[in-house]
């Protein structure tokens, strides 16, 4: 166990708990910065594209994590906010707004619109909020159709390439640039997120999550706080949507559907609700499993000439793996990560039973 002797309040406030942690995250940063090198060496950027996709998922996941994991508001409608971001970005770019302005702006407007939509349902809790946002998700495709002049409706819309001060960025033709761009946005959002959690705003979010009554008694305005969380959350989702558009190249009314919303929720739950790490762990799992399954299948067929072509097997396998993840780690992968860390920190004093799950019992959600 590491004992940290804090000598000033700074120590509590700083981004990292102790020096070693800062070093580890520094190394991680170096690693992600250097990742493309590997792909340059092997001369094949295919998997880099998937990694970029994971980062985009993680951005959206962080958005949802803030709302669901830190404010306690479940949402099955985050694909809607992604749609906002994506279409706003397309339209702003189409109107000649430079990407550097259009991109953040589309996130912010998505956040604003998301908040406006969410305002009337902020009183809701638990299942009801989940179902209200689900309804929102179900209506998204209809509204994309209704807003055809801006969205291309059913026929869809092509997403223009990114142009930063004359530098063209496209997912396929310049995969490295696109990776670094997405990475930059990701890191920026992580930094914002961390800041939020160590300041009053973030604390008011978790307060609302843990006890609305207490939060009010401490002077926290529920509606405002929830709206704020929705705004930030939808903004992140909007930015992810805009990036997703760039990575897809073409979007239609069916792109941002309920499945996408569900995937996001799924992601943060198996990643670990209530931890920034959770968004990344979840994105990695959700992003990698399908790639692994697909490549595994191809590998089987090329190397062993075993052709597995059962319709829906991928989805079922994916679902099966998810079930295993949840069964064996209901607190999410972040929980598993903590255990592994504790094991090394306590070595050799770790007891196997240390994390044995104690019996736990739920109480009703219907008393709020």
């Amino acid at each position, binding site marked *: 166990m590491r004992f940290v002797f804090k000598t000033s309040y700074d120590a509590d406030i700083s981004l990292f708990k102790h020096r070693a942690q800062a070093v580890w995250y520094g190394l991680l940063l170096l690693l992600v910065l250097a990742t493309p090198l590997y792909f340059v060496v092997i001369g094949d950027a295919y998997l880099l594209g998937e990694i970029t996709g994971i980062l985009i998922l993680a951005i959206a996941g962080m958005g949802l994590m803030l709302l669901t994991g830190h404010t306690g508001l479940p949402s099955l409608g985050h694909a809607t906010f992604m749609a906002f971001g994506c279409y706003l970005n397309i339209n702003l770019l189409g109107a000649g707004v430079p990407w550097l302005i259009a991109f953040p702006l589309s996130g912010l407007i998505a956040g604003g619109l998301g908040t406006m939509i969410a305002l009337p349902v902020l009183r809701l809790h638990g299942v009801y909020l989940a179902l209200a946002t689900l*309804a929102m998700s179900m209506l998204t495709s209809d509204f994309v159709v209704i807003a055809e002049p801006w969205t291309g409706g059913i026929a869809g819309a092509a997403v223009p390439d990114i142009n930063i001060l004359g530098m063209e960025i496209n997912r396929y033709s310049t995969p490295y640039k696109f990776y670094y761009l997405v990475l930059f946005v990701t890191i920026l959002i992580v930094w914002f997120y961390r800041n939020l959690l160590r300041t009053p705003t973030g604390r008011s979010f978790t307060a609302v999550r843990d006890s609305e009554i207490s939060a009010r008694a401490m002077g926290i305005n529920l509606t405002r706080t929830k709206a704020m969380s929705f705004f930030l959350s939808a903004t992140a989702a909007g930015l992810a949507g805009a990036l997703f558009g760039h990575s897809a190249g073409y979007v239609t009314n069916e792109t941002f559907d309920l499945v996408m919303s*569900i995937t996001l929720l799924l992601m943060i739950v198996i990643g670990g609700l209530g931890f920034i790490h959770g968004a990344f762990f979840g994105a990695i799992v959700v992003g990698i499993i399908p790639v692994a399954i697909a490549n595994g299948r191809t590998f089987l067929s090329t190397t062993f000439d075993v052709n597995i072509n059962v319709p*829906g097997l991928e989805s079922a396998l994916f679902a099966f793996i998810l079930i295993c993840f949840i*069964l064996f780690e209901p607190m999410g992968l972040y929980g598993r990560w903590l255990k592994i860390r504790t094991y090394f920190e306590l070595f050799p004093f770790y007891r196997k039973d240390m994390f044995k799950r104690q019996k736990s*019992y739920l109480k009703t*959600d219907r008393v709020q």
Partner: protein
Amino acid sequence: MDFLQLIISGLANGCVYGLIALGFVLIYKATEAVNFAQGDFMMLGAFVCIGFTNHEYMGLNFWLAVPLSILVMGGLGYLFNWGILRHMFGQSQTSIVILTIAMGFIIRFIAGAVWSHEPTSLETPFAGQDIRSGGLVLGIDEVLIVVVTAFLTLVFFLFFSRTRIGLAMQAASQNQLAAYYMGIPVRRIHSLVWGLSGMVAAVAGILFASKGAIDPSTGLLGIKAFAAAAIGGFGSLPGALLGGLIIGLVEPLASRYGPPGVSQIAPYAILLLILIFRPGGIFSQTQRKKV
């Protein structure tokens, strides 16, 4: 006359939503878990019955196949809880939701693999038989749906409010720990209610499939049933039926008298409106915490 016809078919259709919603509510009332796979359970129930009764499969007598498939589905619901959810006892409801979503994928896969992805009809003895009177057409299937749904709702309503085990189910959902302190076998009760909801799913599936064809993606209907359950007030059995009827009626009315597209928006728009003005649905089951 047209209008009446519209209402009748709307009611029949609403009952299907109501029946699926009933399945959600059963589970919610007893465990507070939300089963995202209820629609898929229904689909599976229909396919199981098809497997028993259709000629290309086992070709059993329909009236034998129906109870058989209800039993099989009840067993599957029980097993699902026993084999998977039981290990999640006391964990957050969100994890359980994710599990049921994943289960939905697997059920769809199994149904597709066993019965193919193509639409299949259930061979019922009353297929295409109608009662006609004064310009009104009433399918036997529709009559059956209405009768069965009303009956099941009533039975479950009485079960939950009058029987000891029904009360114990409600207790178990409100406070699992306290339920154990009272000696209520909470896990067994969970399995039981999952079994019951599997049976209800089978009934819904059979009735639905007898009204038209069914394929592995039919489970999508579950989403509209969600809306129904929430409109009625998640956790209220009569609410589930009412919510189902509301959606069932609004849809055909909107597509008959509204501009194209409204009928698909309507269920969700109604859900949002109701939740805005009555955050717990019509028969609200929520309560403010006293401090």
